[in-house]
């Protein structure tokens, strides 16, 4: 029998200056992060390096440089022990469709080292937990996308791993299913698991996660507690104004002098402006009056994780473009804001 991994204990994951290359492509570039326990969101655009990071943590890839540890163990050197601590729910279809859910989850428990006497009752237990009822005896090929997502979660938790990697857990699920899936993830995290969730549905993550890591072009862009990241957007207000285009331009110019304007769309006689103002709106209305524009709406713009994500990536992409321009002045791009999506 192997040593039982630290079940039920929060485990930390560290990555120190990790570099992974696929030939000439730099998938992870000097990536350093310390992932705390709890539900952690791993965010990044497609090709940012999220999957590479997870694969390196699983020991499937050996980093070209740097070190990674899970609960103090290096996944490249101690693959067996590390993977026994991990449950992985992949993004894409991966279920053996000729099996039914009970057989698949039992088999997965079994190859995770569970004995037969434990694997069968445990598979029923986790299928109950994820909400798969009598359907568990049907072949997986007949399941809906939502049911398959639940079975994928069940196979990831059957051996009660200390760490869970969930790649797009709500992919293809209806709104009700998404809510239920996030509820399940929260319930799992209540038993001191470290759960790393990679998703594009940031709304789901905002409700469930404690900590966010944003990754772009293989490097860490930002990380922090979700409350702290959202607090950076505190005081964000939306203004809707109408008036002559020339007056709107004057209004916008005045606002830019007085406030940090995050975005502005002026279309014909209408303007939508997002700015930061932590005081009341009296001064804004005064500027409006002076510019002879009509302010139709002024309200707090709720900061969301999506704002944080897009804003952070915009800044990072702009920085990257600046670096590229500095490195090769002959290739300077004319017009437009560099790197803005």
């Amino acid at each position, binding site marked *: 029998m192997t040593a*039982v991994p630290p079940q039920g204990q929060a485990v930390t994951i560290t990555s120190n200056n990790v570099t992974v290359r696929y030939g000439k492509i730099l998938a992870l570039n000097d990536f350093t992060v310390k992932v705390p326990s709890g539900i952690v969101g791993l965010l990044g655009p497609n090709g940012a390096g999220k999957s590479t990071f997870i694969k390196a943590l699983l020991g499937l890839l050996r980093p070209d440089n740097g070190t990674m540890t899970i609960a103090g163990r290096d996944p490249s050197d101690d693959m067996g022990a590390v993977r026994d601590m991990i449950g992985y729910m992949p993004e894409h279809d*991966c279920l053996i469709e000729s099996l039914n859910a009970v057989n698949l989850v039992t088999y997965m428990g079994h190859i995770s080292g569970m*004995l037969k006497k434990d694997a069968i009752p445990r598979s029923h237990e986790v299928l109950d937990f994820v*909400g798969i009822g009598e359907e568990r005896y049907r072949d997986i090929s007949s399941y809906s996308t939502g049911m398959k997502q639940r079975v994928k979660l069940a196979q990831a938790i059957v051996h009660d791993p200390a760490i869970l990697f969930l790649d797009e857990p709500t992919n293809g699920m209806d709104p009700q299913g998404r809510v239920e899936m996030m*509820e399940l993830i929260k319930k799992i995290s209540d038993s001191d698991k470290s759960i790393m969730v990679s998703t594009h549905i940031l709304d789901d993550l905002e409700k469930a996660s404690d900590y966010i890591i944003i990754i772009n072009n293989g490097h860490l862009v930002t990380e922090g507690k979700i409350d702290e990241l959202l607090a950076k957007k505190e005081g964000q207000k939306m203004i809707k104004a109408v008036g002559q285009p020339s007056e709107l331009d004057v209004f916008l110019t005045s606002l830019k002098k007085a406030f940090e304007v995050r975005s502005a769309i002026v279309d014909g006689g209408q303007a939508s402006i997002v700015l930061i103002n932590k005081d009341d709106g009296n001064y804004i209305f005064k500027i409006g009056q002076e510019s002879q524009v009509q302010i139709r709406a002024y309200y707090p713009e709720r900061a969301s994780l999506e704002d944080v994500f897009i804003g952070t990536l915009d800044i990072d992409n702009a920085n990257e473009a600046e670096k590229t321009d500095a490195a090769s002045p002959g290739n300077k791009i004319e017009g437009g804001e560099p790197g803005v999506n």
Partner: protein
Amino acid sequence: MSIDPIRYKPWSGERANHFQRIFVISKFFFLQKIKSKWILLLLILGIFISTVFPIFMYSMMPHEGLDKEIMADHMQTQIIFIFTLLLVAMICSDTISEDLRSNSFVLYFSRAIKTESYLAGKIGGAFLTLSTFTLVPPILLAIIITATQSGNDYLASFGVVGITVVAAIANTLFFLPFGLLISSLTNRKSYAAVGTFMITFILMIISGIFMEFNSNWELIDPYSVLYYFQEVIYGFDLPSNVNSGALAAIFTGFMTIPLALVYIRIHLKAVGK
């Protein structure tokens, strides 16, 4: 389905060591295969045609003991070769192709399963399934002939039983790497099955054409390679036109090259390259 009121329950129990998990893969594969009605049908048909008749014939016929010639003749019959090939084609067809099609490699490799463990598990499962035809019946035949012998030299007869075990293992293992290779090249089960069968026959045809110019071409034919290898196992001399070095090289090549290619293919797949 609704929001489940059930709480997540941690599990604490003993875990099997990593080596035992290979047997889990083998056992699972074997149980899946043995439930397939087509494989069962082929097994029953093959055992009936190749073994049941010889069992009756040899047990009723007066005999002093178990001769090497009897068992070698039995192991070298074309009917056993054809049924073995058919079974390999059916058993190996979805061994890897199913995992390729469903992307289920990730389920294995996110657990404490290395590429070599995965491959060993799958080969073990295929070996167990195929051995119900290639290993068990010949040994049963050898034991029945020994049990019904009139002579007293049981030691010699059991010696032949032992050699038969080795010959049957060689028979079982010979085609598995090749079947696995074909299975790893496609995600369609039917292509893998037909491919295994067809490529063997194409090799036989090529061998038949070119051996008129040079007798060494005979060793391209898998049936000939297996036939001569059985001769070596049973201790008979090889015909003068057969180059023993070439035979050893081709037999080793048949067993190792496909396995190496399968290993590389799965390893790259596991890493996602």
